[in-house]
């Protein structure tokens, strides 16, 4: 029988994978994908809590909002990554290094 705990473990694993990807990936698109993992780990949490613990639909509504916000955030982020590629012919984050100090 699958219960709340199973979902929470999956969500925690997704979150950990997302953070790991953030820290290790150098390609901007991979980093954005890792961020999506983090956001979706929260979504899994929200929907599972809504179904098993809270007994209201608040979590599911929250998850729908998160999906919408994540889409608009990625739209802006991809536009910026595209500009990076146009200016420097690379999606590699390590090459964006003129601002430091």
């Amino acid at each position, binding site marked *: 029988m699958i219960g709340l705990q199973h979902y929470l473990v999956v969500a925690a694993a997704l979150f950990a994978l997302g953070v790991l990807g953030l820290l290790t990936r150098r390609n*901007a698109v991979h980093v954005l994908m890792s*961020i999506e993992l983090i956001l979706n780990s929260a979504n899994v949490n929200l929907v599972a*809590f*809504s179904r098993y613990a809270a007994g*209201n639909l608040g*979590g599911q509504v929250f998850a729908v909002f998160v999906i919408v*916000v994540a889409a608009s*955030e990625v739209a802006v*982020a991809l536009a910026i990554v595209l500009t990076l590629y146009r200016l420097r012919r690379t999606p590699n984050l390590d090459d964006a290094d003129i*601002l430091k100090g």
Partner: protein
Amino acid sequence: MDELTRSLAWFRPELALVVGLVLVVVADSFGGASRNFVMRLLTTGALAAALGFALQLQAEGAKAALFSGMLVIDPLSAAFKLVLIAAGLLTVLAFSFRNSRELHGLGQGELFALVLALVLSCLLLAASNDIVMLYLALEMVSITSYVMVAYLKGDRMSNEASLKYVLFGAASTGTMLYGLSLLYGLAGTTSMPGIQEYLAGGIPDQNRFAVYAVTLLVLAGFGFKIAAVPFHFWCPDVYQGAATPVTALLSVLPKAAGLAITLRFFYGTLSVPESGAWDLAGSIHWTALLMLISVLTMTLGNVAALTQTNMKRLLAYSSIAHAGFLLMGIVALSENGARGLLVYLAAYLVMNLGAFLVVTLVHLHDGSFDLRDYPGLYRRAPLLTLAMAFFLLSLVGIPPFVGFLAKLYVFAAVIEKGMGLYATIAALNVAIAAYYSFKVLKVMTIDPGNEDKPALKLALADQVWLAAFALANLVPLLFWDRIEGWARGALVLYAGG
């Protein structure tokens, strides 16, 4: 339906901004020579109307939950709204496409629309009463600021700054979201008063660790917005890469809104008002954690500012340090602390915007943000140098400027709670801030160089605004009792459903 119309009546400042936003977008789609003038007029008009409505709301002293408990109106949020709208209005008035070399010649409509959207989202964030609203407003602030930073499209620095901003921002708000999802699971509700009720009822021991984890995760989002250590890495790069008027706006608005929601979350959700004072809800000792962050923030900000030669980076590190001082008001966990935070924010607004105006004007005439190009400004632009002296002394907290009084409030609030060591560290930080601020002044007045360059010909409007900001750092002392009364009257936090 009745609740909706009642809520809309309390929603006037935001409605004014929405109307202004739509009109700016429409005006931008018409061609015509007077288009830019009309859009500027619409933006200032919308902000002025919003300011008027916010003043009205504060005078009414209303306390209510709006839109089924999504937002809240209380004197505290009205006071924060005043500060936020004033910051937007002052930036739009004092900075323009004319006096910024970076923005000169770019399309104006988008930026005006973004400014209105940023102010609107900051108002929503400052008044959030539900974690769904909190997340939405925080993301709206973030996404508008990403676009604003990326505004100089072909510019490598602007692009790199926005890239770092969006990646740091998405990561920290994602982390916060994970914390919020756990909080929903624990409390079974997304409403912040509901969560407070759950925490106040006593947390079962097996959930205690989870609540601490939630506090840490949520702090990632708030810390990112106010640029507190260790979520500050984006700040110097973004401040340097963005156009200076955008930097000026970003140094005040998201920080103020972030502090407003931090105050609301930590006082209104993680604490319970008990007979005039505050009690930690469920004995979650967040004050120690926030104190640690505050100490690290002010120390790292000030120490890193010591070696900066780019004025925008220097002011960025100084603004990180100020976030640390501002957090003192929250750590105090008292009405005096909250009052100190409000007064400090109002003072920070005039001193920081003024300093950025000086940097913009020097860049307009000399094309440089480098401190090594600043010698001789005393001779070339006496008014500008005098104004900069006012701003820097105010930023350090030297009497008789407003910055001193602001620091006095937060220091008093902390000492009153017996946190003497904390106040001592903060005082040492003031000394570090004094060192690099005086260094800038020394370069501008005493250091030799630039003897052959002509005097700066400041436009009349720029001179007026420099003088206005400089006076705003001094004149409020004459009617300080009224400002104190304003801040005192604002200390009502409504946390109803």
